[in-house]
């Protein structure tokens, strides 16, 4: 299916709950509707997006809006879809682990790096960084800590000299 | 020469047996038993029972002691290297042990020991084999049936469900 067909199908199934981002082949979904839409994406036989490739968390740079971009692929129908869920800081996104197990580690990574909270995730904890890390490093407003466990963090080469 | 060696063996048996009883650590007790068993094998050699001595080592040291150590490790937390042994009912146990001690001493002094001159003997293996398959055939077979039953019991216990 092409992108337009997918959008049309989604409109009939859940009208008004998805929107197309202007000029792009990307669907935008609000967090309230996301669990419904994700179930449709997975279970609707014409869509059958069984393969969640990637969840990319991103920071718009305005200290307020964060988003997650989901890239789906269907190994049965060979089509592709990108969905974005954008939130304001502090609001959580429904987790899709139930539908795609692949989301487990991706959501943990998004939480770890960008501080996105996923509601319903079985074990949302840091994955790459240590459990006691403070802050979310991939946010644009992240400041490197001066000390880590009492040790000074070397910020420029003069530290070694 | 032989006397010194005998005394050494006897001392080894007694000292290690003491440590088996008094060691605060169960595993140390089991290891101490190794020396007791070895010493006993040495004493068998003095009795010209070379086959029995080797049997002592292969069965007690190579088999039963390993079993005991396994058992000790399984009774407690297996991955901590301090398995303490504690003793309860010290008074009653002491009384029992003392009674047995008195009995043994009495037996030792009341037995008419047949003390003769040193004599060397030929290999004992042949005669042991002949006796086992003629005069003592019934006990031998009964023991093998007992062992078979034990083997089957162990197999049953270790099988899941």
């Amino acid at each position, binding site marked *: 299916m092409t992108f337009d067909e997918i959008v049309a199908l989604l409109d009939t199934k859940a009208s008004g709950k998805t929107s197309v981002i202007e000029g792009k082949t990307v669907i935008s979904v609000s967090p309230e509707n996301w669990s419904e839409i994700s179930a449709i994406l997975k279970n609707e036989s014409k869509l059958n997006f069984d393969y969640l490739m990637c969840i990319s968390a991103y920071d718009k740079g305005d200290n307020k809006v964060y988003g997650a971009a989901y890239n789906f692929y269907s190994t049965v129908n060979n089509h592709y879809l990108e969905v974005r869920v954008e939130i304001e800081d502090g609001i959580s996104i429904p987790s899709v682990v139930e539908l795609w197990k692949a989301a487990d580690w991706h959501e943990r990574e998004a939480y770890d790096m960008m501080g996105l909270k996923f509601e319903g995730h079985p074990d949302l904890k840091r994955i790459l960084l240590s459990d006691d890390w403070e802050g979310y490093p991939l946010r644009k407003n992240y400041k490197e800590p001066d000390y880590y466990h009492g040790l000074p963090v070397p910020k420029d080469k003069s530290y070694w000299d | 020469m032989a006397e010194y060696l005998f005394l050494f063996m006897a001392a080894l048996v007694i000292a290690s047996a003491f440590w088996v009883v008094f060691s605060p650590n169960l595993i140390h007790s089991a290891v101490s038993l*190794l020396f007791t068993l070895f010493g006993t094998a040495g004493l068998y050699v003095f009795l010209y029972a070379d086959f029995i001595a*080797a*049997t002592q080592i*292969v069965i007690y*040291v190579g088999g039963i002691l390993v079993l005991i150590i396994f058992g000790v490790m399984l009774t407690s937390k297996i991955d901590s*290297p301090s398995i303490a042994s504690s003793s309860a009912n010290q008074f009653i146990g002491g009384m029992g042990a003392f009674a047995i001690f008195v009995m043994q001493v009495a037996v030792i002094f009341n037995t008419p020991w047949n003390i003769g001159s040193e004599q060397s003997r030929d*290999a004992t*293996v042949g005669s042991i084999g002949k006796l086992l398959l003629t005069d003592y055939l019934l006990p031998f077979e009964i023991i093998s049936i007992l062992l078979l039953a034990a083997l089957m019991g162990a197999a049953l216990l270790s099988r899941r469900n």
Partner: protein
Amino acid sequence: MTSIFDSLQESLAFLNLDLFMLLSLISLLGGTVIFLVMAVNALVAVYFERKVSAFMQDRLGPMEVGILGFKGGKKFWGGIGQTLADAIKLLTKEDILPKSSDKFLMILAPFIIFSGAFLTFIGLPFAQNIVISDFNIGLFYIVAMSSVGVIGIILAGWSSNNKWSLYGAMRAAAQIISYEIPIGLSLLLVVIVSGSLHLGDIVQWQETNRWFIFHSPFAFLAFFIYFISTVAETNRTPFDIPEAESELVAGWMTEYSGFRWALFFLSEYANMLIVCIVASIVFLGGWLSPLHLINIFPESWYILDGPALGFFWVSLKAVILIFVMMWFRWTFPRLRVDQLMYVCWKVFIPFALANLFFVSLWELIF
């Protein structure tokens, strides 16, 4: 058959020592000889193994270290001093005892393992008269003594206070105790046929009859059961699961270093030598020359068959078997622990028992 012990007793008689001193002196000498044999065996076998593995893996193996300026060039003998250098390195290395280990047992364990191998050598003949002490029950003695080492392995694994070591020790104990049974049953075959536990008598039997491996099809099978089981008993690939490097780091040896680790190493290679010498004595005619197998050589060749060359033949047969063990190691993957137990309990032991029955029948009929 005279032993080194006896001949030393005779030749030292001129010293006019009292019996105690004499026996102590002889025991000391005998012990030194065994220790030297073990040390030299380890040095040579490790070098041999490295070169064999290098050959099989398209490598050169050690090429740099020499002895007294002799490096061996780019030949097979290159790096001839490598194992010696390694031995010196091991002896001078820091001896680490983990903080929460059971220190007493951790120190004791290597010595128990070492004693197991050491004591076995006392009854092990290298040729007709080259044996430290000649036991009447030689074969049984060897089997008995080689079962001592397993206690050391359990203690080593447990006292290290390391879960990997413990796994290794548990696996090793299960494996070694299990494989002792097929080994014992295969050797029992020989005892039944030759009617003696004395290794000299067993070779004597083979001299008057034929090599044991050619005695009957069952004996032939018994040799293979024995040999494969000894590969398992010495913890070598494909049965090296107790120290499986990719699984258990180094199994029960994980926490050991320096001299005490060197003792493990020494005993391991000593055990290899022991089982191969036993195999060659019991099944392959011991110090009998293989030239007798096919009587096509001119009479003059049989000079190779004299007692002096007994040592040569025993060593040759043992070295060939050791080479086969190394060949196994560098060819096969490792079995899993349940497969290993399966092979022992469901294949080897039934076959060995059936073997025992049939060889007894064979003896009755023929």
